[in-house]
């Protein structure tokens, strides 16, 4: 994540820091090159193309990886006794298309994909799409909560550290953010669970709502939103309560990351001539900070925030397993350990899709924040 900025021309979901990261103060943020008929249409087309290629690549990588290696989904899914019966093994292979040659298996999968069919999960015996629809909302709630917490805390910490550079508070924040980056997520989750739930009993336990409550009527699958829509405020507060600790734990890493990046981005802007000019003409510090400094610094900050979302999704695997939240991380874990190929590819596609979407949002935000990006 925290690599030195290297020139990288990366179309795949724009996973590299995009061209608008302004290291060394250069401000050339041009999009695209020759003769666009309609810049927005070109841009969107390009993005959709990249998304399709990325999805194709993700399925191909997962497929090749899981087939090159010795693991066998049959042994991973069937019990000892069933494995001894050749008829059952053959039936399992036929049912999941495992008896066909590999390229044929892959083409069958792609054919289904085009029709919106992600295949059947070998583990849950349900369509992967149904599984995903059930598990994705819990993760969206968790990761969304974590990214909001990280943005608020990370940007605030970073601004304070930059404004008070080399003072005590800067040093303290530096250590705190490094601890945030260094702490093992799974361990922090356990400690938080032990301290806040088990000892102090100020947060609710595992799951998405209290055990004696039933899930709110499903509209979006997000318990907080569904409960609010249905006016079930007790369920709403329980769902929010169950969200806070895991989201905080998940946010630890990204808070650290955003603090470091915000600090250097703000420092960079603070040294610019127009900030010095604003200060010289006697504008109040608050105006300088919000209208001049933060607005410019936000471009690199949201770039990093977009990238950080990827590490958040990684973290959900560990956090969800400790807090027993039935999300996509848990689902990914279960499908990976049972070599449930369609499910793993489904997870990969969802996550890859989220990447593309986040990058699109980040690109649009560039234009909102920085008019120069829009003009060019």
């Amino acid at each position, binding site marked *: 994540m925290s690599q030195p900025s290297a020139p990288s021309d990366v179309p795949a979901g724009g996973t590299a820091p995009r061209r608008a990261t302004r*290291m060394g103060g250069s401000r050339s943020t041009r999009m695209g090159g020759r003769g666009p008929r309609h810049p927005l249409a070109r841009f969107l087309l390009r993005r959709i193309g990249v998304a399709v290629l990325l999805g194709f*690549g993700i399925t191909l990588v997962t497929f090749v*990886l899981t087939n090159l*290696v010795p*693991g066998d989904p049959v042994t991973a899914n069937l019990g000892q006794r069933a494995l001894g019966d050749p008829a059952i093994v053959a039936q399992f292979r036929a049912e999941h298309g495992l008896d066909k040659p590999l390229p044929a298996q892959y083409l069958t999968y792609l054919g289904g994909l085009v029709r919106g069919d992600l295949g059947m999960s070998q583990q849950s015996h349900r369509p992967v799409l149904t599984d995903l629809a059930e598990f994705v909302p819990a993760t969206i709630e968790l990761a969304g909560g974590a990214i909001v917490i990280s943005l608020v805390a990370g940007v605030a910490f970073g601004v304070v550290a930059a404004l008070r550079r080399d003072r005590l508070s800067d040093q303290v924040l530096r250590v705190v953010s490094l601890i945030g980056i260094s702490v*093992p997520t799974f361990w922090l989750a356990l400690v938080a669970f032990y301290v806040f739930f088990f000892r102090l009993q100020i947060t609710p336990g595992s799951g998405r709502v209290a055990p004696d409550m039933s899930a709110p009527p499903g509209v979006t699958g997000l318990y907080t939103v569904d409960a609010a829509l249905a006016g079930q405020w007790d369920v709403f507060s329980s769902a929010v309560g169950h969200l806070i600790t895991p989201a905080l734990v998940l946010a630890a890493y990204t808070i650290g990351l955003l603090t470091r990046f915000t600090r250097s981005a703000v*420092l960079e802007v603070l040294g610019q001539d127009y900030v010095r000019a604003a200060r010289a003409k006697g504008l109040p510090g608050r105006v300088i900070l919000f209208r001049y400094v933060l607005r410019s610094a936000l471009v690199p900050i949201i770039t990093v925030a977009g990238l950080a979302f990827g590490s958040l999704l990684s973290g959900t*695997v560990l956090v969800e397993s400790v807090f027993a939240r039935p999300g996509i991380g848990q689902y990914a874990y279960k499908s990976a350990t049972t070599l449930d190929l369609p499910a793993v590819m489904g997870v990969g596609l969802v996550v890859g899709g989220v990447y593309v979407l986040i990058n699109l949002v980040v690109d649009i935000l560039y234009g909102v924040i920085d008019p120069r990006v829009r003009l060019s």
Partner: protein
Amino acid sequence: MRILSRLPEAWRQPLAVVGAVVALAWLVIAAAAPLLAPHDPLAQDLPRLASPGPGHWFGTDQLGRDILSRIMYGARVSIPLTLLLVVLSLLIGGALGASAGYFGRWVGEGIMRLADLVFAFPTVILAMVVAAALGASLTNAVLAVLVVAWPAYARVTRGLVLGMREREFVLSGRLLGFSAWRSLRVDVLPNVTGPILVLATLDIGTALLLLSGLSFLGLGAKPPSPEWGAMVAAGVDVFDSWWVATFPGLAILTVVLAFNFLGDTLRDALDPRTARAIKERAL
């Protein structure tokens, strides 16, 4: 070399000193574990789940093993493997990135698109798939982390080499008749090692976190190995005996933190922007 002349500045930073001392301490513990550990890490002869106290300062686990001794022996599992992992991904990623940057378009494009694909996958999920497919073992967990770790090096090395390739002294070397390989080895590589080493230092922490994370999920070290992530996982089952999970986790935290302290200071020392700021202040 430029990098070496900036190092003394880094050493004046208290964070770097703390990081170096802690990292060194862990290396000593790993090397001297048989001498330092008060008990056999595998012997199950102590009272079960005894809380921390004299005789067993970090308590004992559910099988009556001394946790302090297990953590000390665990350093011999986790730290060498992590270092090996980082060195391997640096060599593989660095070599691929350097060839992508220096040699032709097609090779380079191919390598970088592969790197992009790995980047688009969340690391833990991809590593999990690889580890699960290879079968749960510590070696396979290392391989899995390797699969997700090399692209960062490839990308950074390629960027640096690309920038370096057009520099005048490299071009003049080529015009004097240096072979591509000699030019890469003599002119380019020495000038790109600094930033890559910083990345590697920062990556030691990430690699350890990922490796112990896989073990925590049951995809790495197998019992009775005193691997730290697996030890934290063992603590999940005996939740109210807090010491079982707490101390191994602290071990991971301190190692990762030490290398991040070091890497962070090194980066500041090597980053021209920070160096400029320091110089401006000195004037």
